[in-house]
């Protein structure tokens, strides 16, 4: 009786998260094959399995089929139900890996999401809980998702043993607002969080010192917090990190982060983060490079109006994401240089016509 919708095929393990998110949002079935089929350990990784479990929890009626070898999955998306959930994340990736897709899905759930995730809060590969709280969530506010949007860092957990815990609260919306953000403005303030767990608390102060040595020349409005968690709240492994964000006059946010590495002095870590921030600021645009895909997705999901956003050049993820979006939603972006007169400017204006996506999961009355 149920009508078979179109199935979208992909191969390869890359960009799995964005494809899963797009599939669930658009309601189109997804089949991914050849997941690490030529690899030494073929098939889905434990963190990917964990992500699929999480997505199954947050949705109702989702059918995930994993082939025997684990090199192919097919996903028949259900509806996003939300509610209060707890998930223990795999320790091979940090919480950011799991939280990012959830952040994109949560505003369109049936009930407000209260998700508790346990695992690693900061690592090399994914956005740390700090960055998600201070940068990612403000990006959602551009689209009118603000009241009750919160990420609480209950415990920190550094790799490899983790032991961190965050709570993500997200309201539901009927429809996201159309974005029109073409004025990057100028950097007016810089904030940062230096944290150290199960190491000498002086480490964070040392990082702050090093950062200030570079950034003080630009603006006076710099506050770098030293965030020290003690005892049970500091997780199971030692580690420290520095996350920085620069906010412009039009509240465009750029961020960077560097995480402790064995054998590297905290000052060097701080310098790395600072320089990465400067590089990010130099790239310009209204949206940080790490958040391009998120902003683009929300633009696609906006009302049936033209949304515009100015960003730096796309990353590989963004490029593939744009292609995937066209498959799932049929929306193409118009991408033109933001400043046609300046030949060396790499900034681009992305504009698209929103699909008029309405949260169909929302209950009336």
């Amino acid at each position, binding site marked *: 009786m149920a009508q078979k919708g179109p199935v979208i095929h992909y191969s390869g393990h890359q960009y799995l998260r964005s494809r899963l998110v797009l599939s669930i949002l658009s309601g189109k079935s997804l089949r991914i094959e050849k997941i690490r089929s030529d690899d030494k350990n073929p098939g889905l990784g434990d963190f990917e399995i964990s992500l699929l479990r999480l997505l199954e929890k947050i949705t109702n*009626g989702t059918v995930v089929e994993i082939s025997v070898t684990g090199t192919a999955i097919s996903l028949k998306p259900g509806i996003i139900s939300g509610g209060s959930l707890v998930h223990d994340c795999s320790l091979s990736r940090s919480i950011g890996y799991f939280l990012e897709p959830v952040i994109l899905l949560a505003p369109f759930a049936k009930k407000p999401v209260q998700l508790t995730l346990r695992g690693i809060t900061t690592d090399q590969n994914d956005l740390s809980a700090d960055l998600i709280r201070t940068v990612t969530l403000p990006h959602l506010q551009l689209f009118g998702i603000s009241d009750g949007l919160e990420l609480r860092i209950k415990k920190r957990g550094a790799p490899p043993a983790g032991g961190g815990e965050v709570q993500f609260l997200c309201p539901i919306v009927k429809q996201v607002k159309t974005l029109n953000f073409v004025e990057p403005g100028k*950097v007016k303030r810089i904030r940062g969080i230096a944290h150290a767990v199960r190491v000498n608390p002086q480490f964070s102060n040392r990082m702050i010192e090093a950062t200030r040595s570079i950034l003080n020349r*630009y603006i006076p409005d710099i506050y770098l917090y030293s965030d020290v968690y003690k005892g049970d709240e500091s997780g199971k492994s030692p580690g420290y990190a520095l996350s920085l964000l620069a906010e412009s006059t039009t509240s465009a946010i750029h961020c960077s982060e560097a995480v402790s590495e064995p054998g590297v002095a905290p000052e060097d870590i701080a310098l790395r983060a600072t*320089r990465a921030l400067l590089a990010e*600021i130099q790239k310009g645009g209204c949206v940080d490079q790490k958040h391009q895909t998120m902003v683009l997705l929300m633009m696609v999901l906006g009302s*049936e109006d033209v949304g515009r956003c100015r960003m730096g050049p796309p*990353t590989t993820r963004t490029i593939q994401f744009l292609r995937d979006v066209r498959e799932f939603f049929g929306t193409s972006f118009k991408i033109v240089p933001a400043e046609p*007169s300046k030949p060396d400017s790499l900034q681009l204006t992305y504009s698209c*016509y929103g699909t008029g996506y309405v949260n169909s999961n929302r209950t009336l009355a």
Partner: protein
Amino acid sequence: MEDRPHKPHRPAQSGAKAEKKEKGKGKEKSHGFNEKAFAPKSGRRADRQGRRKVEKDQTRLHVPLVNRTPDDEPPPVIVAIVGPPGVGKTTLLKSLVRRYTKQTLNEPKGPITVVSGKKRRLTFVECNNDLNSLIDIGKVADLVLLMIDGSFGFEMETFEFLNILQSHGFPKVIGVLTHLDLIKKAATLRASKKALKKRFWTEIYQGAKLFYLSGVLNGRYPDTEILNLSRFISVMKFRPLVFRNTHPYVLADRLEDLTSRELIRTTDGKCDRTVTVYGYVRGTNLRHGMKVHIPGVGDLDIKSVTQLGDPCPMPDADSEKRRKLSEKKKLLIHAPMSDVGGVVYDKDAVYINVPGSFSRGNGDVPQGEGEQMVMDLQDAGLTLDDAVAQSQIRLFGSSSRHLAIDEDANMKGAGSSEDGMSDDEEEEEDFDEEDDEEGSALGSDEELDEDEELDEDEDSGEVDMERLRADPQNTGRTKLRDVSRSLPSSSKKQREEVDFADSDSDLGGGDGDDDFGVGGRRARFGDDEDIHVPGDEEDSDTNDEDGAEWQPQSSNRSFGRRRRKDWMKLIYSTSLTPEQILTHGKDDDAMEEDGEENEDEDDFFHIKKRDDLSKDEELDKTKETIKEQHLKKWEDEDVLESIRNLFITGEDIAQGEDGAEVNENGEPYEEEGGDFEDLEVDVDDARPPSSTPADSEAIRAANLAAKKEALKKRFDEEYDDPEASKLDFYDEKKEEMARQLQLNKAEFEGVDAESRALVEGFRPGAYVRIELADVPCEMVENFDPTYPILVGGLLPAEEKFGYVQVRIKRHRWFTRTLKTNDPLIFSLGWRRFQTVPIYSLDDHSIRMRMLKYTPEHMHCYATFYGPVSLPNTGFCAFNSLSGNASGFRVTATGVVLDIDRSVKIVKKLKLTGVPFKIFKNTAFIKNMFTSALEVAKFEGANVRTVSGIRGQVKKALAKPDGAFRATFEDKVLMSDIIFLRAWYSIQPRKFYNPVTSLLLSNKSEWTGMRLTGQVRRDEGLKTPLNVNSTYKKIERPHRRFNPLVVPKKLQAELPYSSKPKLMKPQQKQTYLQKRAMVMEPEEKKAIALLQQMRALRKDQVARRKEKKEEKKQEHRRKAEKDEAKRAEKEKEKKKEHMRIAGQKSKRQADLEDGRSSKRRKT
């Protein structure tokens, strides 16, 4: 000529007119406008008036809604003419069409589009009385002309239709009363008008417009009345309706079958068809990859969409200057299903419809020998031989060269008696050929005429081969055709224009290309953008692309300047991996670029492959790895200084502090004067590229002035009244919407049509041709133009299926209650489908409890399986759609609340058992469960006796099976029944049956799933009788209660008051009873006398009574006689009355018979 400015009006300085004016002025001055006249007399009154004004202002406010229909070129307004049969719908349609186009239609069928004014077009649709059509048309009509027979009154269909409208968003409704000439008496007419109006107003709203049309003249309604009606239609304003403002839809005004005839022949016509439908896009933009639903057919995939030239274009700028619509435009009509309008454009063909041709139905036109021959040939059967023979005649343009080019078109031509051509030269040739073959009497001037016309439209692919004949009707047609010829031509032509003119403004390329100023090259660039229209063949795409790309790039190299990446093209129309796109042109320029873009160069691929292999596991990570070598440069002090301008403390190179100023509208100012001119060149090629210092100076000055102006405005606002500039919520929202609409319009303004269609889809107002794949053949075979074909776009969410929870209320005019699990036909969204709902009610917010029947006068919930619709979508439901169902057919109405993939509806389940052993507060219960496992599942569950003693299930007993131990708050009796209240969850059946009425030959005869009872009735089966279900006499044995026994010991201890006081009845006779009585003789005498007297008295009374009875009898007999007489009289009277009534009704019936027969005649 057009550019010349109009002369300004100069009032006459002298002469009669000036004098008149002067006089008027004087009068005005002397009498003047009396300010006091409208001023309130008292303060209280002023207060009241003020309050009333504010109140009225508030009622005027509505929730601001964005109107997605563009203002400049809106689609035609759909005017549906609805009413019961014989009410005069066709007559009204003909009259209105004649009013707008001065043409009389013989047989109007399908939508008819006319130009009604300078800014408005109308599409008239006549809707038949089938409920399916009513539902469909109610979902798309902008204005409904609801026709009511004034001499008869409202009919059930009218009310049903109004209820349908209500649940799907109420469009504007104008009532039209007809047949008023049948009411002869003026007083009756007035009274019935008033009554009908009152009813109409209660149905729609107080003051709804109701029109009266008197009799029919020359098969039309009187011109003045129609004129009035048309005026009302032309000033009608429409408020956007939510559902239509979120969905694209097309009311198909034409339908063609594109399936190859051969396939149809081989499959006996049973194959799935490829069908094109044509119509204006309405609602929102029709996007690519959208699924559509055709009510009555089902969900279909769009194969391709093409925008065609508008067959009924709005008056252009030229006629805009006139106050009235020009006569030429008045003749424009587009009604492909009604065979009028002359020329019809398709993607690659033009169809010319000419009456009096070889087509059928023109028996009155004299036919020459040649025509007769051709017509005979058309009669040929469908064998292959005949088909070949036929195609030889019809496919006169089938030169081999041509066939090879356009095979697709040829197939079509072979099938639908049209011919494929793509070249005017060939056309001319072909015409000659045809002439030869026909040997017909075509006049040479005719031929000339035809050729001329074909020359005019340059690239019309196909021409309908039904040729002109020299007959009087022709003259009118040729004129008409000329009108249509001025339309924008087919899309092919547009594409050509794009190639040569619009190239610079294509989406991605525009900005990148400005560096080389050679027009021809740019044109080529535009070309390759064009190719990515989904309708085109993919293979040819890539080839063309490669070819096209080569040239600009080589030119680019020769110019020796670095070119910017065209991201859109790289991302969307190449198959490069993201990494390749990023690395592409990063370090070295054009040389490598060329190599990369031409994918066929081998060494490029090798490099990348190697690169790919070198990387091992690539994680899906958000944070890019920070590369130390990239950060190295930040150690340099100069580099650090170079980005100082990106901070607020940094100096801006050109503008100083507030470079990031944003003006009032949120639009950024242009950054620098120097940029500005470049931008201009970019956007508008018409302006000469000027970079002289004087110009830039002027621009800078203008910039400065604009900035000053903004500053001044802000100051003024702040200084004068800071409150005044603040808008209230309503105005703010409206302004925001207007701004967004402006932006929507501006963003894709300069972009050529096809790239624009790619990005934003087809805008409302565009005339499109939608090619649908896999359409059931019945739709084509049973096509009837009087049934509207509606193509409704589906949102991504609406393609899915799930459990839909709705709030539902049985319609109060529907006589029966609705039962859970009875099939119901829903009209929800675009769809009409049958499904099986389960009714439920919220039970104390704890559970959803199933209801077997819908409650009376109350909303309840219903849950069914079906296609998802967004929450807050209205619907109406029916038990049957067929025309012969009696009574009111709208069963229920409601609104969608929730979508889910599972349901939580429960129904009550009562398990009963009896105790078989009772201890103090514990009892062993049996007969509730059948196994220990079941008991285990219910451990801890609450149980209760009928008398209200509560308890709990404890544990299963070993023997007998299913028995368990339970504890109670008090001792239970052996006679007690123990029960356990449980909730059993139920699932709605996954039954979804779309109403495929358009696929039937008899479209109103659709039957879905029937009820069991209906099936039995239809099949003549008896209802099986379960013996256990029959009613039997209930035997209730008398209950005997044992006497209450208080133990003796206890009795002894009780206080006296509590002691049972039980005494035996006296056994012995009393003293008095034992004694005999003896009387004295005197006493005896007295008693005897008394006895005698009593006997006498008795006798007397008896006799008196007898006498009275006799008298009464007499009286009764008399009364009876009277009664009989009266009854006789009464009977006579009644007889007389009935006789008169019978005569009256007979007369009426006769009258009605006469009228209906008359109706049928018209």
